[in-house]
């Protein structure tokens, strides 16, 4: 230990800390300044940025003692404090106003980098901002709002006032619905006070680590933990034998061992867990666990997995490596192709991709009875499915569900990647064994290795159409790489299959999908849920057909677009809320706005092209799965209302949407409603935050609970005023009769006096759906989108850039337009990554993409101009007509880009991410098709 003198946010600190600390560690763990986040420890993501003597640096790789005697500013020091309170920095104000904050985890880094820029240059243009923030990642926003916010902050700093916010126009705003309200803890998210799991500290807390497999597929012969157990400071070392209950977890199929005892099936498999007094001790002790393995043959890809010679991962399982064969049968294929004038058949490959939410997984377990706050075994975790976490923990711990409490913390991004169990069961076991709180924080590298990814797919698709542009038939075969465990493969690949006709009227379809077990990291939910993959194939085949019959790509889509009255490939008659044609028309009008439209052209050494693609995505679980959300609404005598729901806000702004629904129903100002999320003891089950379902499902649950509460209050007020209940008006925080009124709080008081409960639970059941293969409504709503991408291709290098995206999205109803726009912009940028930058590479079962520096996602420098239109074809059952938005923007960007590349240079890309190397070589050789992706460069 040595003396370290620092001035942090104007306060002098003299610390006695080890010389081995990084600055980020000192800030977070020695000083409790947890606003500074650690995203990667590789100087890659930039979210740990602080100022040292005014210069922005990555604190994760900055030795603390290098800062000796220096002045440091962190996110906590950005706002000014005086007698009158806190005054937010213009950057903080602007990030709030422009909705440049979603999950909030990267926000401190973005704002510290931005303030450093504005300190030097208060009038930055787009390029200056892109240069300054180039290596500060945000996975949620897509950066468009960030750029706007920084410009606005600069304008305020220059004394020129804030710039207008790009709030999208919408149809028929209501009192609260249709307004861009801010999430309730937005100030916490911009000041660094927002707490994510790793920001929590409990007395006596231990630190945990997981020993993971050394092989992608091996039998475990022996595990010797004696040396690790004897290591000073180690409090527990546990293996499969120590799992108190069932040593399996899973979301659909229970096939994933809590700890592997007999065999390992991928490199991320957990073999042993350690709790120790410090993280350093846990790290060191991990290396002392001796495991003897007998390596087995590796199943490296899904096509091989289905062959008879492939080793079987889950021995004794009926069906071997075939996780599921999914079938769509519709119409008469023979007739469909016989009547087609043009038939196009191609094979497409999409990569495994990684969510790269900026907050790595973290869980804290607290043993039952540890203190008054923790009577039950309690797990703090940022999870997308708190109640299913509880159930999986309880099964493994051999406890009833009610004996376990899951307390949801803020989630630093999810995108589907925080649905599966990570450290929740492990910390439960370690906490109960040691009788102390235990924190398990994954490193970025462990997160990359461990959690389920987006399925890599191979999609062969054959499309037939008549010369007049009528689509006649689609036949497709999909292989999905499910990885080592089922996770949500069954559901994801079902969605890929059912959506493989595209959002079109396809009278004849035959689609087969094989979801396979392999020794790769498991695949699971990822924004788009399989549809991102099939859309890449469907929408390129659409362009190929249009070209073959000589029809404009837009006209061809319009001719076949789903509309009310069309029956989908799964036999669902679309009866309402099909806004696809309007989305196509809106995008087409913008694309052709300059009058002399061309799909492709050249300027000097650059080729430009437009590409268009459509998408649809179900809202809700569908497929016959009972879909239910519970929510509770309680009114208080002070006129405030609390909404309670176990559902996840991972940045999409669900807390705002739920509060808006309650405020609208009760005629309250938005800020009279607060939301308590995700505590399984205090909040009812909102179901999984997946499938773009929470606005629809929990939004409805809250809306109906609030409506019931309103009706209860009506009866009371009606008697008081002697006025018919159905003529009472709830508005502006008042209950109004003709000429008289009382405040909402007084109405609550009155109700309570009469013994009427002002706490209402509503169990909302989504409309019934049908399983695939039985016809009827497989889903209760679909969202629709069209996107056009303008891309450039450098004719000398093959480098592809996206210059502009025009998007139109039918979401039924815009409950919160700015949050919605944030979902769309963020989804588009994420999908650009899917097409251009991202591939999680696994070499014969061994991940290569083990560092964030090997997994590039779009940064602010890739951000194109985005023009997004909202289209609102109301869904009759959705809250105020709303449908889902979380996934729909992330589906058609990739094929739109691929179509644009073709229109620019005449080369079609069938495998992604696009390899500029192969593209250039094809261009130079005059070839028109490329079947190599980046990861094929070897």
């Amino acid at each position, binding site marked *: 230990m040595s003396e370290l003198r620092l001035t942090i946010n104007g306060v002098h600190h003299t610390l006695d800390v*080890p*010389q*081995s600390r*990084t600055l980020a560690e000192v800030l977070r763990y020695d000083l409790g300044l947890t606003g500074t986040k650690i995203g990667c*420890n*590789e*100087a890659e993501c*930039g979210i740990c*940025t602080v100022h040292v003597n005014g*210069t*922005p*640096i*990555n604190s994760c*790789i*900055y*030795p603390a*003692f*290098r800062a*000796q005697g220096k002045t440091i500013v962190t996110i906590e020091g950005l706002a000014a404090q005086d007698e009158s309170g806190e005054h937010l920095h213009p950057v903080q104000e602007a990030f709030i106003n422009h909705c440049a904050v979603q999950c909030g985890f990267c926000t401190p880094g973005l704002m510290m*980098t931005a303030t*450093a820029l504005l300190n030097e240059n208060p009038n930055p243009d787009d390029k200056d901002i892109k*240069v*300054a*923030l*180039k*290596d*500060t990642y945000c996975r949620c926003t897509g950066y468009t709002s960030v750029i706007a916010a920084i410009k606005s902050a600069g304008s305020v700093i220059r004394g020129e006032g804030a710039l207008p916010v790009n709030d999208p126009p919408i149809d028929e705003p209501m009192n609260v619905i249709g307004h861009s309200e801010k999430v309730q803890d937005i100030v916490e998210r911009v000041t660094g006070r927002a707490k994510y799991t790793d920001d929590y500290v409990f007395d006596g807390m231990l630190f945990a680590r997981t020993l993971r497999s050394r092989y992608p597929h091996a039998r475990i012969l022996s595990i010797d933990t004696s040396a690790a157990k004897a290591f000073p400071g180690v409090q527990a070392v546990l293996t499969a034998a120590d799992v108190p209950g069932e040593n399996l977890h899973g979301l659909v199929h229970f096939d994933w061992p809590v700890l592997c005892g007999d065999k390992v099936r991928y490199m991320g498999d957990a073999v042993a867990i350690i709790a120790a007094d410090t*993280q*350093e001790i846990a*790290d060191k002790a991990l290396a002392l666990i001796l495991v003897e393995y007998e390596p087995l043959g590796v199943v490296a890809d899904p096509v091989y997995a289905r062959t008879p010679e492939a080793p079987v991962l889950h021995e004794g399982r009926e069906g071997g490596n075939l996780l599921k064969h999914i079938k769509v049968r519709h119409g008469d294929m023979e007739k469909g192709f016989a009547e087609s004038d043009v038939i196009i058949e191609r094979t497409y490959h999409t990569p495994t991709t990684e969510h790269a939410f900026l907050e790595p997984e973290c869980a804290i377990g607290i043993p039952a009875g540890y203190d008054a706050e923790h009577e039950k075994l309690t797990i703090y975790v940022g999870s997308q499915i708190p109640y299913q976490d509880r159930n999986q923990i309880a099964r493994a711990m051999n406890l009833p569900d009610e004996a376990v409490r899951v307390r949801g913390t803020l989630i630093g991004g999810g995108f589907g990647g925080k649905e599966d169990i990570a450290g929740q069961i492990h910390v439960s076991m370690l906490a109960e064994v040691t009788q102390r709180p235990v924190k398990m924080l994954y490193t970025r*590298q462990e997160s990359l290795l461990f959690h389920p990814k987006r399925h890599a797919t191979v999609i062969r698709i054959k499309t037939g159409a008549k010369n007049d542009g009528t689509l006649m038939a689609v036949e497709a075969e999909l292989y999905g790489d499910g990885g080592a465990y089922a996770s949500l493969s069954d559901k994801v690949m079902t969605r890929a299959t059912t959506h493989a006709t595209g959002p079109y009227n396809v009278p004849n379809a035959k689609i087969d999908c094989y979801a396979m077990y392999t020794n790769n990291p498991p695949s699971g939910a990822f924004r788009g849920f399989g549809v991102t993959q099939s859309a890449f194939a469907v929408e390129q085949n659409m362009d190929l057909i249009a070209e073959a019959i000589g029809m404009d790509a837009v006209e061809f889509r319009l001719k076949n677009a789903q509309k009310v009255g069309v029956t989908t490939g799964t036999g669902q008659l679309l009866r309402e809320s099909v806004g696809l044609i309007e989305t196509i028309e809106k995008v087409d009008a913008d694309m052709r706005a300059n009058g002399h439209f061309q799909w492709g052209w050249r300027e000097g050494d650059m080729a430009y092209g437009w590409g268009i693609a459509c998408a649809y995505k179900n809202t809700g679980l569908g497929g016959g799965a009972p879909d239910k959300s519970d929510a509770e609404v309680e009114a208080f005598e002070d006129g405030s209302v609390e909404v309670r729901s176990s559902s996840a806000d991972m940045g999409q702004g669900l807390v705002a949407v739920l509060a808006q629904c309650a405020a609208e129903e009760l005629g309250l100002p938005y800020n009279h409603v607060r939301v308590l999320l995700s505590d399984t003891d205090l909040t009812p089950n909102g179901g999984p935050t997946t499938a773009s379902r929470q606005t629809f499902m929990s939004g409805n649950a809250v809306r109906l609970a609030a409506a019931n509460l309103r009706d209860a209050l009506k009866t009371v007020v009606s008697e008081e005023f002697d006025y018919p209940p159905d003529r009472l008006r709830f508005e502006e925080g008042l209950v109004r009769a003709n000429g008289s009124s009382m405040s909402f709080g007084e109405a609550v008081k009155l109700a309570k006096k009469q013994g009427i409960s002002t706490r209402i639970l509503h169990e909302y059941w989504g409309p019934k759906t049908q399983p695939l293969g039985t016809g009827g409504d497989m889903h209760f709503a679909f969202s629709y989108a069209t996107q056009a991408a303008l891309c450039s291709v450098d004719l*000398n*290098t*093959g*480098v592809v850039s996206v210059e502009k995206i025009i998007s139109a999205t039918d979401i039924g109803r815009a409950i919160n337009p700015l949050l919605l726009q944030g979902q769309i912009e963020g989804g588009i940028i994420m999908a650009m990554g899917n097409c*251009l*930058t*991202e*591939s999680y*590479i696994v070499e014969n079962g061994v991940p*290569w993409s*083990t*560092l964030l*520096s*090997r997994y*590039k996602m779009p940064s602010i*420098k*890739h951000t194109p101009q985005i023009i997004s239109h909202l289209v609102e074809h109301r869904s009759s059952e959705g809250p105020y007509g709303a449908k889902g938005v979380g996934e729909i923007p992330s589906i058609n960007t990739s094929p739109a880009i691929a179509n644009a590349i073709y229109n620019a240079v005449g080369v079609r890309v069938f495998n992604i*991410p696009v390899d*500029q*190397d192969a593209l*250039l*070589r094809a261009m*130079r050789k005059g070839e028109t098709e490329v079947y190599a992706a*980046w*990861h094929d*460069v*070897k």
Partner: protein
Amino acid sequence: MQLWQDYHTPTSVEEAIQHLSSYAGNSRIIAGGTDLLIDLQFNHEGPMLDALIDVTAIPEMTRLTEENGWCTVGGAVTHTNIVKSALIESKATCLVESCGVVGGPQVRNVGTLGGNVAHALPAGDGTTSLVALDAEAEVAWGDGRREWLPLVQLFKGPGVSALDSSRDLLVVFRFKLCGDGEATAFKRIMRPQGVALPVLGCAVWVKLDESKQNYTAARICIGPIASVPARASEVELALYGQPANDDTLEKAVKIAHETLHPRTSKYRATAEYRDHMIETLLRQALPLAVKRAQTGVAQAEGVGMG
């Protein structure tokens, strides 16, 4: 994860060498640390280091000076400070252009030119330009000797430096600044996926005759071609005494294709693509340097756009 024990911040080269020597091989020099801390976490095998020796408080290593037409850049000068140097921008433009595309601002603010060279990548951006500038480096060896060496002699293989960063120290670089009729340029090709290493980088230095119409000399570094950075001497030779026009450029491109044989690197580039990129880069960098030499005006391009 604890990666080292002690942290020292010496204020002279001698003190730094003494520290290294006292830890007998189990300490390391740290300059910016942007590569080192990642290596220690993810690639380091063996026991935890006893110490890091921080060289960023050694005055002679953090200075950037001009004397008699020569520029001296301390090994611990950051990329940002090089990019901000008006002197280097005007008279060794390629170095600003290469240092300006390394990482993002946070990395450039701490990452140093010495660290870039000591890391010994065959196509480090700073390295490529230093080779074209014919730079020399002063090394303080662990045995107390100080020695000036041509830059290329510091490279032994991909990632293998002649310096042992547990014993030796790269103190300063020096190179001659461009005079009248001389100029430089740096260009590189990246891909948006995978590690942020150049597919191919190219730095050129040209010297024109008094008429400013003919080459009298040139130095060109294109990499990675071999396992260590090297000059493209056949291409340079093709320029000597030739008019600075398109015909000469075509000849240079042809000779480059004939004499430079890049290899395929996994997840980075195929040999065939790199072969095309040699041409693309020469066509960009050479005319740019010629224009700068002719006009005497050089403004760095692409800074921050890496």
